[in-house]
């Protein structure tokens, strides 16, 4: 009985010892053993990286060169429905007609719902429609052009300083 008590006291006394980091001699095998539980994380990381990298190796763009000019009315733009005119010209500065145009308006701050719009051709190379600016601030519009031959062109146009009403 007394032996048990002594042993327990000794254990308690030992546990009371101040804890400091201890120097350790570490071999490669020890490191590998210690990191063993982390292999699923490494695997996940490697897989995600591989996916992203393979996703980035897309074919170089063969889209035709199209000049996109976007005008917004009122100018300077305000929140609410705005009139949008997009002019498409080719490298020879000739209007590009017969295209299908879609607009996607986004704020430069994440977390805002985008605005979408489809434009109609009013005259050759000139497309008109409306776009809803839901909040004041800096916007950008992605103009997606589908040409009569089926090829697609995306162009980003910045619209800074949309004023709140």
């Amino acid at each position: 009985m007394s032996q048990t008590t002594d042993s327990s006291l000794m254990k308690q006394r030992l546990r009371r010892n101040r804890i400091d980091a201890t120097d350790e001699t570490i071999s490669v095998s020890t490191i590998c053993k210690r990191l063993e539980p982390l292999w699923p994380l490494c695997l996940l990381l490697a897989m995600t990286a591989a996916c992203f990298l393979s996703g980035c190796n897309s074919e170089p763009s063969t889209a035709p060169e199209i000049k996109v000019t976007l005008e917004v009315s009122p100018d300077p733009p305000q929140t609410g429905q705005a009139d949008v005119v997009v002019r498409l010209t080719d490298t020879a500065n000739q209007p590009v007609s017969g295209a299908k145009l879609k607009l996607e308006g986004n704020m430069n701050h994440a977390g805002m719902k985008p605005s979408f719009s489809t434009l109609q051709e009013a005259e050759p190379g000139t497309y008109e429609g409306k776009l809803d600016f839901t909040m004041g601030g800096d916007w950008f519009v992605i103009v997606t052009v589908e040409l009569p031959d089926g090829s697609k062109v995306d162009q980003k146009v910045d619209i800074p300083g949309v004023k709140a009403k």
Partner: protein
Amino acid sequence: MTVHTEHISEVVSTPTVSSAQRFDLLGVPCLGRFLKWRWSRVTLQLLLCGISLIMILHAFFGPQLAPKNLATLLTWVHFRGLVVLVLLLAGNFFCMACPFMVPRMIARKIRLPQRRWPRWLRNKWPAIVLFVAVLFVYELFDLWGDPWWTGALIVGYFLTALGIDAIFQRASFCKYVCPVGQFNFLSSTMSPLEVTVREPVICATCETKDCIRGRREVYDPDRHKSSEANSLPIIQQGCELALFQPRKVGNLDCTFCLDCVYACPHDNVGILSRLPAESLADDEVRSGIGRLGNRTDWTALTIVFVFGALLNAFAMVSPVYVLEATIASATGLTVEWPILMFLFAAALIFEPLILLGAAAFATRKWTGKSDNLRTIVHRFTRCLVPFGFGVWLAHYGFHFFTGVLTVIPVTQSAAQSLLGWSVFGEPQWQLGGIPERFVFPIELGFLGLGIWGSLLVAWRISIDFAPRAAKGAFIPWACVLVVLFLSACWILTQPMDMRGTFLGG
């Protein structure tokens, strides 16, 4: 022995509500069991680390359009929003699940750090400098609209945490450097839960103090050599932030790591309910911190937290354009950083100096006390924390509530471009969040809660400071709070302009 007796009496005399009367999160079926599981924290950290890695990869290799990139969206909308909401409704669970701790954990498995954090840096000044720097860089480089730089910031954060904690012992990064951690510490004073002792009497009779010292393997003469008796391996570390549970007050400096819960041999530490903001009024000596009234760094941190909240919100509304343009035309400046520095100095130095100095002066005059102004500012500044938290809640809550569902189409789009097929379906871009007209009353509610809490804390501090002239002490600080509250309401009613490029660059 004398010391031991004094310590016991101190612990026992601490007025606390018995745990039987308090809600204990660790007693909740399933959730409590999960949290008590030794690997729960690591599991949560690995989960968030996985999400962080996806964000980093998307930041560098995904579309460089903020609304379509997971790095900008999750960092500036969802993470910030969820952090403040979880702090309001529960506690500092984001520090618990901090992903930046995973590389450190790996590094410490390879080699334990040998150095102690420099004595002259054992304060909040490094974190304050970084806190202001992050706010400044956020405004200057429009980080909310830049996926690449947001990714770089996350990587920088990982490397800093790893670098510091690989060299220095204990939780040096969390306690002295991490600006997000300091934000969480101050905000968690408003949380309804705290990691604390269940029965103080049990601590009074505890001899091992494993909650702070950690638990070593028990000496076994059959397995260990006698020479190893003093250096047996640690099987559960104690609090790395030097918070001794029986003398810990509130949530300041607590990362909810639950090391004390796992280390306590008496199962006497829980996550208990408490009255939010109550600990702010106390000026007693806090374990690992000391007396807040003597800590200039804590006062400075509180000022940055409160006035930084107003500045951060002000920078997103229309009038800031006018102000910046006015300064630019008056000074002839064509670059933004000096103008921004002026705004920061005005908001974080001159405005607090004038408001808090005037309030301290009035307090001294009306109470007839002889304390110097600095002491009074140290004592009362804490009462601003609930209001400051209310402003952060209103601001981050706005972004979160109005854009909560945008994570769905962005994730769908990321998966689509990543894998080449719509594994989660076509992106549902029409998903947004709660309309602004419904979010605005919620924002006002947060501000109202904030000022209400601040007034109550100010009153409590006033009674302690000048029991016979509490009104004289309270009125100046109530006036400061009303001024700040009105300015916050004014900011909220301004058109949210999502301020971006200024002066064309």
